[in-house]
């Protein structure tokens, strides 16, 4: 059984001659996808953990806006009701710091994700739709970016970041500039296969121009892929950012990120375990929950590809 995930397009459009789901079915497709998603226990687990972490971090920032840099005078305190995650060597409340780090990381990850979607979809769509020389050129570009580990490129370029005023924004753009290739490849592949399908030819025969075909017919058919990978890009961005911070590159104090906290906790890991354990666990949980959500979306939106579970 073939299921097409499509956006809700205007049914009455004369060019929507599609035979494969670009019509009234689309609404029920979404309903079905939603039902599948909410029946997926791991996805729900991910969604709950993710929401809890976000609610916690927003609440903490609202209630205690400068908590992540206030010196409490309690040095190296083990977790207690007063300091949920304990305190650091210089007396900062670790819970506050972690929550601040979460927000910082998510903010970066969101920008990266949006950038990847925009860049990746554009490049993938152009390459897949027009093919030929443009395709070859764009795909070579992608190959080129993939030829050197993204981390190494970031390490080299992070010299540019440190010391800049809005380092986090700059870092986000850098990560975004490196993260779009995956979405580009997937969108291109879908375009290549969709291009030949009857509904596109029908639309073309009816005089729809390229822009219209791309935006009304092809991109809606890729929404599933794009959504899933936008989610996974968030996880990837957090991973990369925390790794850079751990290396002491990228963000520098007074900014806070989870990777930085882990790195600071490393020194004291054996004696003051909480300084390592809490930032590391939060980091892990947030990435894990985003992966679960992404995988849940994948199997909900595109049941043909049983990505990790089925």
């Amino acid at each position, binding site marked *: 059984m073939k299921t097409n995930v499509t956006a809700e397009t205007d049914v009455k459009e004369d060019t929507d001659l599609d035979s494969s789901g670009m019509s009234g079915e689309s609404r029920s497709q979404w309903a079905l996808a939603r039902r599948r998603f909410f029946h997926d226990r791991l996805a729900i687990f991910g969604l709950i953990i993710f929401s809890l972490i976000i609610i916690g971090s927003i609440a903490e920032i609202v209630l205690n806006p400068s908590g992540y840099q206030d010196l409490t005078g309690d040095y190296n305190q083990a977790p207690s009701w007063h300091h949920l995650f304990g305190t650091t060597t210089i007396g900062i409340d670790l819970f506050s710091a972690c929550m601040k780090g979460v927000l910082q990381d998510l903010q970066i990850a969101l920008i990266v994700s949006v950038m990847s979607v925009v860049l990746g979809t554009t490049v993938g769509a152009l390459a897949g739709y027009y093919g030929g020389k443009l395709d070859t050129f764009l795909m070579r570009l992608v190959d080129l970016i*993939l*030829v050197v580990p993204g981390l190494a490129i970031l390490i080299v370029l992070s010299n540019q970041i440190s010391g800049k005023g809005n380092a986090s924004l700059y870092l986000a753009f850098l990560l975004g500039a490196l993260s779009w290739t995956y979405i580009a490849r997937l969108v291109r592949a879908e375009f290549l296969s969709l291009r030949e399908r009857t509904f596109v030819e029908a639309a073309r025969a009816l005089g729809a121009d390229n822009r219209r075909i791309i935006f009304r017919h092809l991109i809606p058919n890729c929404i599933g892929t794009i959504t899933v990978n936008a989610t996974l890009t968030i996880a990837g961005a957090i991973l990369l950012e925390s790794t850079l911070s751990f290396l002491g590159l990228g963000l520098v104090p007074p900014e806070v990120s989870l990777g930085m906290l882990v790195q600071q906790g490393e020194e004291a890991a054996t004696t003051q375990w909480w300084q390592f354990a809490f930032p590391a666990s939060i980091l892990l949980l947030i990435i894990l929950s985003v992966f679960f959500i992404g995988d849940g979306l994948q199997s909900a939106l595109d049941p043909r590809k049983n990505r990790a579970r089925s």
Partner: protein
Amino acid sequence: MRFVIRRLTISVFILFLASIFVFLLVAFSGDPLAQLKLDPRTPLATLQYRRHLLHLDLPLWERYFYWFSHAIRGDLGNTIAGLPVSPQLVSHMVITLRMVLVALVFSVIIAIGTGVISALYRGKFIDRTITFTNFFFLATPVFVTGLFLKFFVALPINQHAGKILIYTDGDQSPLADGSFFHRLPDYIGHMILPTITLILATYATWSIYQRSTLLETMDLDHVLLARSKGLSRRRVLLRHMLRNALIPVTTVIALDFAALLGGAVITETVYSWNGMGSWFLEGVGNLDVNITMAYLLVTAVFVIVFNLLADIAYAALDPRIRLS
């Protein structure tokens, strides 16, 4: 054979492009003399001399040409300290490669093994356990795994034993000497933790992919035909499902080699290895242009070679490509 030659030509071309890319990347990543310039006591002559040494007084393309024409002959220039880069690169590379290659082999074995088991027992407890574990390691940053193993596994064990059972620092004992075979146990002892870390960071994606490709194979016509021939379950699994599923899996594994090298940078940092990754980090920190470029170029070569191997493996595994 023609196929291999064609792929080889493309690879060389990509490598050439990659060298330009790497060069530009480094050229625009910062001024190696920035610190020197900031210091008001630096005599202008020194500045100019240093600039001349680094060819910064030449136009960009001439600099590239100079670097490239030397690089091609294996001369990657000098470090800031004035030592030739190439020998340093080789000695660090050997250290890194022995970790990366061992990790690669084990990751592939573990990934295929768990992927197959998972697919075979789809939906059962063991499948769910494997899948959850895969996601867990997929979500854990390399440095977290590394630090955890170091501080919360290896150190307590060592403490408990009262002596070092598992090495947590360095790629070899500082005073080790004797023949290669004599030192082998020492090498291996130092490799255990970093390699495990790298494996855990790598295998999960492949395992997940192996499982899903196998499951997709399960309902294919040719698998049904194979079963209708009366073959044993085992034979159908190995000869008709796994054999075919290996084709896409090989490609994915080869494409991930870049990530493996990236992971090695972190592992080396965590376990204070003196490999290529930490050498590179140090080079970047010192704004040592030639070290940085050498590292990037060499990783690009590795990645391209692996892609080439993947193409060849693909052709070897799939007669439709081999014969076309």
